[in-house]
């Protein structure tokens, strides 16, 4: 249900504020924030700690709610949805990648990749094939039966990436996805992001490392809950 632009925005925030009451004073983690992330774009969200980048990511990920303003995901206004509908949205339209991988320890690789589909109301028939294909793609097809604790950090993050792709999301949200990895492994992961971007996936990568931010197509820099700077990198797809 796109209206204005011919290219529908992946995520659109309109004067969004997120206020945390903290010991009498209100902390404005996001302050009258208006922005639009386009479909198929690869953004790095940067800023010092406390700048509001985590809050932005949580709102984009539909696990936190706006205090005021509207937020829509792929044209759908989600600020008024209830918890059930938000959960459903997460399972269908979002892919999460975390700094500490956040795989579920009692599940093996294949089961971990399948978790988002497990929570869909009508899971696709070919979920398992899809998961196997994704494992193949991230180079872990021979590790399907392994538990997360039997894998290296880089391997775990690959599983997490496969998991974030299994529901064919509108938006991939990566929170310091390379923060726990050594530089060569981090580079591999970033190459994977480039590939995904080239395939037309919308990716938002939160980071505080400039060299990682430089890998993204565009950069959004936050400061005190507001937009500080927006710029494009030269090595983008355009």
């Amino acid at each position, binding site marked *: 249900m796109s209206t204005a632009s011919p290219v529908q925005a992946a995520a659109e925030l309109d004067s969004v504020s997120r206020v945390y009451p903290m010991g009498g004073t209100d902390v404005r983690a996001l302050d009258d924030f208006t922005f639009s992330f386009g479909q198929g774009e690869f953004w790095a969200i940067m800023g010092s700690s406390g700048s509001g980048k985590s809050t932005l990511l949580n709102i984009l990920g539909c696990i936190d709610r706006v205090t005021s303003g509207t937020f829509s995901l792929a044209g759908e206004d989600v600020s008024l949805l209830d918890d*059930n509908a938000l*959960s459903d949205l997460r399972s269908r339209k979002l892919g999460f990648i975390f700094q500490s991988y*956040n795989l579920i320890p009692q*599940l093996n690789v294949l089961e971990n990749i399948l978790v988002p589909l497990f929570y869909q109301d009508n899971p696709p028939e070919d979920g398992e094939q899809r998961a196997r294909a994704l494992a193949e793609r991230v180079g872990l097809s021979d590790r399907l039966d392994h538990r997360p604790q039997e894998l290296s950090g880089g391997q775990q993050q690959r599983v997490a990436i496969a998991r974030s792709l299994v529901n064919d999301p509108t938006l991939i949200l990566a929170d310091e996805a390379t923060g726990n990895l050594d530089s060569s492994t981090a580079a591999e992961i970033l190459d994977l992001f480039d590939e995904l971007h080239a395939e037309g996936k919308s990716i938002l990568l939160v980071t505080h490392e400039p060299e990682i931010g430089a890998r993204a197509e565009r950069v959004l820099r936050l400061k005190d809950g507001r937009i500080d700077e927006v710029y494009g990198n030269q090595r983008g797809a355009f």
Partner: protein
Amino acid sequence: MQSTLLRTVRLGVQSLLLHKLRSSLTTLGVLFGVSSVIAMLAIGEGASIEAQNQIRQLGSQNVILRAVKPPEQGVSNQRQRVLAYGLLDDDLARIEETFPGIERVVPLREISEDVRFGSRSMRPRIISTLPAYIEATGRVVDRGRFLDEFDEASHANVCVLGYEVARFLFPLSSPLGERIKLGADYFICVGTLLPRVLLQSDRPAPGKDITGEVFIPLNTGAKWFGKMQVKMRAGSMDMEAVELHEIIVAVKEAENVPLVASACREMLAREHSQRDYEVVVPLELLLRAEETKRIFNIVLGSIAGISLLVGGIGIMNVMLATVTERTREIGIRRALGAKQSHIITQFLVETVVLSAGGGVLGVALGIAIPSAVERFADMRTVVTPGAPLLAFGISAGIGVIFGLYPAWRAATMDPVEALRHE
């Protein structure tokens, strides 16, 4: 949806297997709760059936009048006295003549004399009674026959041995036709009886004398032994004159039993100046035993119920700890699209698996305990089919009830907070 549930159960089991020791210890609480419910109910049921059998043996359509030695009255320091008490031949006649709706009336007298054969001697109850005794009590002849009308009419010196007496006096041979000495006189054995329905309580304790019975015709007993019982004690001689020790009144219709019982009570109260009798109504005892059983079951049931409750609280405790421990996992699942209902189901399934697992093992143990009790403690137990079902149902229910709160706590966590949890 079915496969989703199946997967959730499998997931729950996987999570529980991650902490094998903790899960099995938690299960123990329910296990003991369930098994104690079943075992206690089985022991209670067994005791009550035992009591009911004992009462039935007296004959549920009978009213039994018994002579009771009245309490010593006044100062009686005579060295020699005759204490006359008990039921009278007149009582018997009055019942026979006046009470309607009576099948038969059987008088019993007990004689205390030694019974001897060869070198073996014992002191069983010697009962002189009428041939109708066997019908009134439902006893069964093993070998030979019971006393008959001809014995009675001819004052014959014949006797019928109870099972225990026959076994004691004739361990290897048949007593039929043998001459047995009762007191000073010889009686010919014409038959033996089967033991009464074997009750655990009838088994003599080890080292204790076997009590048995010997039956002789009423007239013969009166002829040889009279109505006087002489008991020698150090320094004194007690003599008791009892006409009849017991009268069994067999009523035709079961519903008339209370009526006949009250008529007997009334008649005896009128005719006897002292309370030297008692009226035993097995039917009334039966009703009372059922009431006792009900109370017994309630008491045992609530004790066992409390132990189940304790097991349930144990489960809740562990699940609360588990939820706290797995806060991160809950956050991940929520972020990946799990609804609150998914999280509730997940944790509820885990508690139900724990408690139902404990329930299954508890049922097995609960069935094993009564049979062990039966074997080693010599008590009768009955596991009614309802008891395991009840106990298992309660344990599964406890899983749901005590799992709800931890599951609710897990489901209502803020996903952002949960993800940040270390």
